């Protein structure tokens, strides 16, 4: 039997201040990055929004022999397409051409909708007329193989108007928030409000941290990032519940121990599971980051950061918050019951009938 986690004891909660400090430091860095970028005139935006949310066009083209990025850029500039971003995919002959909406156009509402619409309609044609410099396009059912005189083929387009972009963004945010409310209510019903709060704050922590990374490193935020964030939320809550469940189970069996110790032990008891599950999932995601290519880059990066944090936040954020709140409910006169010096006798944290987890919180 292979088990490296036997008799593993680590006082997680005692180091909560260090953990929370690290988290707050990263969040502040993210906030500084987001606000700083927003306030810097002429600088980059808080987030590097992809065309899904900001509007714009991505054209994926496949070339018989791929011109250099600079050649493509100058061809696009000649055709009047300003500020294109040229990216390679994981295929040598394919190229992604991204044309963001211009700043001035997104600024005003109303009449400019027509402009965005035109951009949605023109995007593909503009790029096509620019690429015609390199040779003929294979159109319709023709492929590069079937038509030997062609030089390239447009194999995909994503064109989103600014209005649709903001709709997609709002829809994703609202759906995620409603989902969190559902989680909050269910955990409160099955465990306790304090635990629900701990789990949901941990989820917010993870999402904010992921967004901080995206702002600091200016990774592109697109629709796949939303899917990644949904996955992160799922795993983070999952991790929290596994620990809470163990606490709930341990409490009746250890009547004379403090909740502080019980939680610490519960974290250690489930640590092998936490490490194995998280390790396996993170390993698969790492493979995705390395081999997934440019198209999945944002998705895999968000997953990698978020899943790692989700595992950490359960221990470092969700559990301390749940316990801290219980201590507040217990005796308002004790300012910091979690401080190791204040060892007191049993104090019922709450008289709630449902709560089996509300126990004296000491240390």
């Amino acid at each position, binding site marked *: 039997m292979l088990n490296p986690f036997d008799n593993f004891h680590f006082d997680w909660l005692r180091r909560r201040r260090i953990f929370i400090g690290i988290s707050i430091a990263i969040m502040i860095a993210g906030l500084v990055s987001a606000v700083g970028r927003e306030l810097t005139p002429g600088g980059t935006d808080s987030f590097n929004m992809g065309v899904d949310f900001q509007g714009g066009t991505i054209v994926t083209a496949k070339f018989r022999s791929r011109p250099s990025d600079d050649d493509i850029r100058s061809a696009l500039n000649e055709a009047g397409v300003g500020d294109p971003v040229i990216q390679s995919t994981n295929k040598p002959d394919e190229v992604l051409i991204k044309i963001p909406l211009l700043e001035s156009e997104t600024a005003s509402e109303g009449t400019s909708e027509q402009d965005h619409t035109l951009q949605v309609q023109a995007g593909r044609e503009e790029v096509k007329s620019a690429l015609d410099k390199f040779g003929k396009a294979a159109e319709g059912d023709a492929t590069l193989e079937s038509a030997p005189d062609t030089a390239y083929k447009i194999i*995909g387009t994503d064109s989103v108007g600014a209005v649709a972009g903001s709709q997609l963004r709002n829809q994703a945010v609202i759906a995620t928030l409603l989902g969190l409310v559902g989680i909050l209510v269910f955990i409160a019903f099955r465990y306790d409000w304090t635990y629900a709060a701990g789990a949901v704050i941990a989820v917010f922590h993870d999402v904010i941290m992921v967004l901080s990374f995206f702002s600091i490193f200016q990774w592109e935020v697109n629709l796949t990032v939303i899917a990644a964030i*949904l996955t992160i939320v799922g795993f983070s809550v999952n991790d929290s519940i596994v620990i809470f469940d163990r606490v709930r189970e341990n409490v009746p069996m250890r009547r004379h121990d403090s909740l502080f110790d019980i939680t610490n032990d519960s974290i250690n008891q489930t640590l092998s599971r936490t490490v194995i599950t998280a390790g396996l999932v993170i390993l698969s995601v790492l493979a995705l980051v390395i081999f997934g290519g440019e198209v999945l880059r944002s998705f895999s990066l968000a997953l990698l950061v978020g899943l790692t944090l989700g595992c950490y936040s359960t221990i470092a954020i969700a559990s301390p918050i749940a316990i801290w709140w219980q201590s507040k409910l217990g005796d308002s006169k004790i300012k910091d019951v979690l401080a190791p010096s204040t060892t007191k006798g049993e104090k019922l944290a709450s008289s709630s009938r449902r709560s089996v987890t509300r126990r004296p919180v000491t240390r």
Partner: protein
Amino acid sequence: MNRTGLWIRTGVILAITLVGVYMVFGPRRMPTSADFTWEGIKTNLAENINLGLDLKGGSHLVMRVKLDDYLKTMTENNAQAAVSAIQDSTDPKFQVTNNTTVAENGNYSFNVTLADGTDLSAVAEAVKKKVDLQTWNESTSGSTISWTLGAAAQNVLKVDAVSQAKKIIESRINTYGVKEPTLQNQGSPTSGQILLQMPGVDDPERVKALIGAESNLALMKIVSAANPAPVTTYPSIDAAKASLGGTVPANRKILPYTDRDEQAAAGQTPDQKPPTKYVVVEYPAVVDGSELRNAEAVSRTGAQGDYQITFQFKPSGAQKFGDWTGKNINNYMAVVLNDEVKSAAFIKSQIFDSGEISGKFTKTTAEDLALTLKSGALPAKIVYQEERTVGPSLGADSIRSGVEASLGGLGLVIVFMLFYYRGSGVNAVVALVLNMLLTVAALVLIRSTLTLPGIAGLILGIGMAVDSNVLIFERIREELKAGFDIPTSIDLGFDRAFVTIIDTHITTIISSVILYMAGGAGPIRGFAVTLILGLLINLFTAVFVSRTIFNWELSLRPKMNRLSI
């Protein structure tokens, strides 16, 4: 557990597995021997799994009907029609001194002020006889009558306009020959948004042009001296206005007119238009596009740029047209398309049911125009908000990378589970593979569409399945370490882990259901569906199936003193 119970459980598992295998790999008809070959299985698999556009290629278009424009035009037309209805009367009381129209920011109303305010109800009656104002609120003050469109009535009209637009778009793409398109409202029905998905179309330019094409056909009487005098035209709008005494009354319109014969005589291509002239026509039209029964592109000479469009009327339109042409022999009639006079001809004799739009059309333009005429006019302009196209090769790449990522992840997990949990790892592997098979089978069963975010949901489902196995095995190890014997440890391990598994699964299912409901038709939905299915199935595979395997092990080796875990 006794053997009979075990056999029953095994029977259930085998039966479900067989159904799953058949759902995924079997044909939806009587199987033949061909279905058992590698090729046959591949064909069936491709037929059973309904791939989304992002995986099989196609166009995804989100468009918006400009409903504000629709209501604005309707308000303006009604205002104009009301004024001309009043002016048509010979009663001296019916004299319009002023009329105003409001059509912006959700307010739609028009009012008419009369010289004599003593008999407003008679005036209102006269107007309502000619103009349909049923849903409009009528009010009077002084010598002014106002008609206002309330918010509820606006919404009714908006919903109607969107469904009308959908019908028209549908008939246009059907005639064009798009296979299995899906057309549905996106967001609230009053937002005017329509989602159109066209599998297999990776260059939607022509379809888009066809959908958005305007085709407002109207036959109107030209204000002109009768034949044999040539049709009266004006070199500019101002000249035309001057002929009407400086202002354009409600029952007249000035429209641009390009003479086809002059164009032909000058030998110009259709691109270089000769100077535009203007004609004055009577408003409203004699008949309009809604009376059309059929339209066709025809070429008399067969030359590429020499197509006309002939059209036939419905019986009601034919009657109207016949009556009118009978009374107006030798007068000039304009064929107006999208507010432009395409041809002006004098009426030789009474015509009932057919007409022609002449102009130097190319074959494609003529065909597309005939098509749009046949399907009727869109209620308002359409703008595109979102366009996504995926070529078949890009879609195939996405499938390949999605499947590779899933299988790669699964392979990694399998190797680790066998290494870390030894014999019991086999249970986990069986449970995982069965989970994947049954999730796909369930997707087939509910005819859901597999998209790229759906594959992400599938991968998360596998992750949660691994987690369930790890939870159970770790728990069994703990119980063994605590000194329980093997059967008790397995029992306790499953029972205790089950509570955790239920809680984690229900939490994720609740949030996924909310995501599904709030996520709209977009990618979030595909993610939620596969995740929910994967989790439900995992409760069966990770708990029931895995437990049955353990029980077989115990039953076959009752004296086992070491569990391989």
